[in-house]
């Protein structure tokens, strides 16, 4: 990155963080915010201890418990031994190294990618890392945010920097306007189906265009969150007034003259007109309809109104074989209408769709209706704050009245490290980001959907959109 031509947003953020640059060596990049959770941090802290190194900047580091916390009975000890050890180890490490921790039961606890933005710690133009691939979420603010491995976690804890080779840049231009009932989740699912799970490999994606600019910050997070599912290192969206409005007044946002200085700087964080991207992809938002996955990777998706494709229709032999294997695992047949697929479980939550707007959208659909017989619906807020906000708005009661379960905050069934899991061959409609084999529980079958589709599906028991419900009623 870095040339005499115009620069992309990603290049600008990169350039502003280079501590050291030398021929043939990776750039040393400064990291503005390091998010830590219980699964990928224990060995990093242990490495520091062995080498007698402190955490260089505890004031740029924050930890939370999310991946394997239970979402019921959170006042009791965690039953699972591995989970409990990881959580207890994180608590000890944070105490020893002076790192701020939002533990279970704390008002700021939640999924790491929900609490950073919520506290106003994620801001435009920053570099943000976390030992978790969905760190790309924070790119919604125009930050350069990406997941790292455990030894890199140790490196950042010790030095607040990372040696990195430049990424390539990709523009995803989303033209037109979304139709009502079509959401950010549908954009990103359609994109991944279009470019494939390797389509973004080695790239930082910048999402641009009318449809992106019209999105709320939370919806932008949904899109950036899933960049990694297209193989990209990160996703970004240029900050604008929508971003600034979201940030203003958040606990860790600047105030007064500092705020003005920050906004003045942020306004320059846009891709220059003469900048060139390594790759450009286009998408027309106005043609999109609710999108769901039928297979076992996020690139195996189709519009809800479609049928399951015939594997034979894939030109590429590897795609064909993958589709065959996916259908076998999912217990589905080519040609089946997606709307005919019955589910056992509906999961609303995760760092993709576990924020207040997601819960509001799902609640609006399910209000005054009932979860279908034989279907279990789990609503898991992304953070304690989201949970409390929802309760203030009465959303918890809407879900409970409909027959759904209202849970505590955490990753929950997104990855089933806690007891919230699918049983073998159980089928879910899930607002999360990964439909891999066994992701939500051994043998579990996952269909990725938007919160609107999730709620409508809970009511009918089959993959549905809210418009299907209206039809039933009229």
């Amino acid at each position, binding site marked *: 990155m870095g040339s005499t031509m115009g620069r992309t947003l990603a290049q600008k953020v990169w350039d502003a963080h280079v501590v050291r640059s030398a021929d043939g060596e990776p750039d040393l990049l400064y990291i503005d915010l390091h998010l830590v959770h219980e699964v990928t941090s224990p060995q990093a802290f*242990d490495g520091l201890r062995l080498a007698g190194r402190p955490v260089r900047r505890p004031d740029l580091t924050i930890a939370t418990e999310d991946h394997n916390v239970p979402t019921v009975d959170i006042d009791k000890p965690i039953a699972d031994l591995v989970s409990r050890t990881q959580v207890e180890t994180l608590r000890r490490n944070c105490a020893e190294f002076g790192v701020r921790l939002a533990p279970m039961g704390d008002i700021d606890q939640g999924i790491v990618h929900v609490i950073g933005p919520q506290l106003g710690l994620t801001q435009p133009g920053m570099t943000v890392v976390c030992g978790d691939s969905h760190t790309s979420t924070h790119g919604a603010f125009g930050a350069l945010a990406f997941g790292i491995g455990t030894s890199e976690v140790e490196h950042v804890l010790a030095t607040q920097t990372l040696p990195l080779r430049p990424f390539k840049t990709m523009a995803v231009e989303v033209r037109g306007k979304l139709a009502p009932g079509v959401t950010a989740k549908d954009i990103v699912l359609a994109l991944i189906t279009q470019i494939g799970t390797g389509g973004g490999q080695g790239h930082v994606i910048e999402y641009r265009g009318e449809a992106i600019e019209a999105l709320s910050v939370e919806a932008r997070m949904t899109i950036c969150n899933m960049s990694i599912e297209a193989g990209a290192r990160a996703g970004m969206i240029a900050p604008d007034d929508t971003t600034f409005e979201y940030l203003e007044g958040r606990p860790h946002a600047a105030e007064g003259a500092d705020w003005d200085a920050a906004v003045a700087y942020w306004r320059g964080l846009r891709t220059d007109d003469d900048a060139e991207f390594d790759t450009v992809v286009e998408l027309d938002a106005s043609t999109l309809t609710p999108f769901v996955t039928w297979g076992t990777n996020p690139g195996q998706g189709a519009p809800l109104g479609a049928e399951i494709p015939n594997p034979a229709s894939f030109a590429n032999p590897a795609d064909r074989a993958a589709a065959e294997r996916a259908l076998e695992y999912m217990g589905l047949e080519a040609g089946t209408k997606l709307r005919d697929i019955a589910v056992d479980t509906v999961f609303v939550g995760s760092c993709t769709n576990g924020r207040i707007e997601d819960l509001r959208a799902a609640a609006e659909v399910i209000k005054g209706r009932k979860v279908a017989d034989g279907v279990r619906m789990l609503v898991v807020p992304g953070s304690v704050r989201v949970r409390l906000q929802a309760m203030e708005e009465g959303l918890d009661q809407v879900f409970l009245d409909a027959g759904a379960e209202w849970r505590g905050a955490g990753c929950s069934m997104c990855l089933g490290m806690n007891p919230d899991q699918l049983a073998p061959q159980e089928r879910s409609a899930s607002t999360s980001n990964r439909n891999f084999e066994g992701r939500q529980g051994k043998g579990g079958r996952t269909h990725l959907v938007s919160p609107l589709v999730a709620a409508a599906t809970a009511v009918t028991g089959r993959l549905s959109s809210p418009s299907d419900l209206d039809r039933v009623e009229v």
Partner: protein
Amino acid sequence: MEKFTIHTGRALPLRRSNVDTDQIIPAEYLKRVTRTGFEDGLFAAWRKDPDFILNQPQYAGVSVLVAGPDFGTGSSREHAVWALNDYGFRVVLSSRYADIFRGNSSKAGLLTAVVAEDRIEQIWADVEADPATEVTVDLAAREVRWAGQTAPFDIDDYTRWRLMEGLDDIGLTLRHEEMVTEFEHSRPGWLPRTLPAKSG
């Protein structure tokens, strides 16, 4: 990370090729929360066999692993290097390694030296004939010496320098700590800090 210049110790002749990281340390050991104490996981599946070479008393206390080609293939787990280190190995000799394993080794201070296959065979034969044979691995001279014989080994300059200086990735970065500090002074004051904690 300890500096490595020269090491002398007894050797383990592991007559196997394609030793993958699953064999070096099985997946069940990956759930731990520590960076040390993985010695019990080293070759755990093979060690269940009482005849496995590492279980033989004459090879107690070895520190040089002499293996067949394609050592360290498979999953990228860093635990494989930790397990070898924790058991007490300082050096692996083989004619070929998996790239990721070799990269992980140099970061953790384990020397993986590339020695010609016929020399590996010779070391195996000599050590099997007399397990008390001392093997010296001289990183400065890029040479292995045992039982009056010598063999050169390959290692790239950069890795050699890092090992001799005892620099892990973090140590390398900390050599430029002044630049990091200088950068920190230039950061705008409005950037957020997690401490003191604000809630809301």
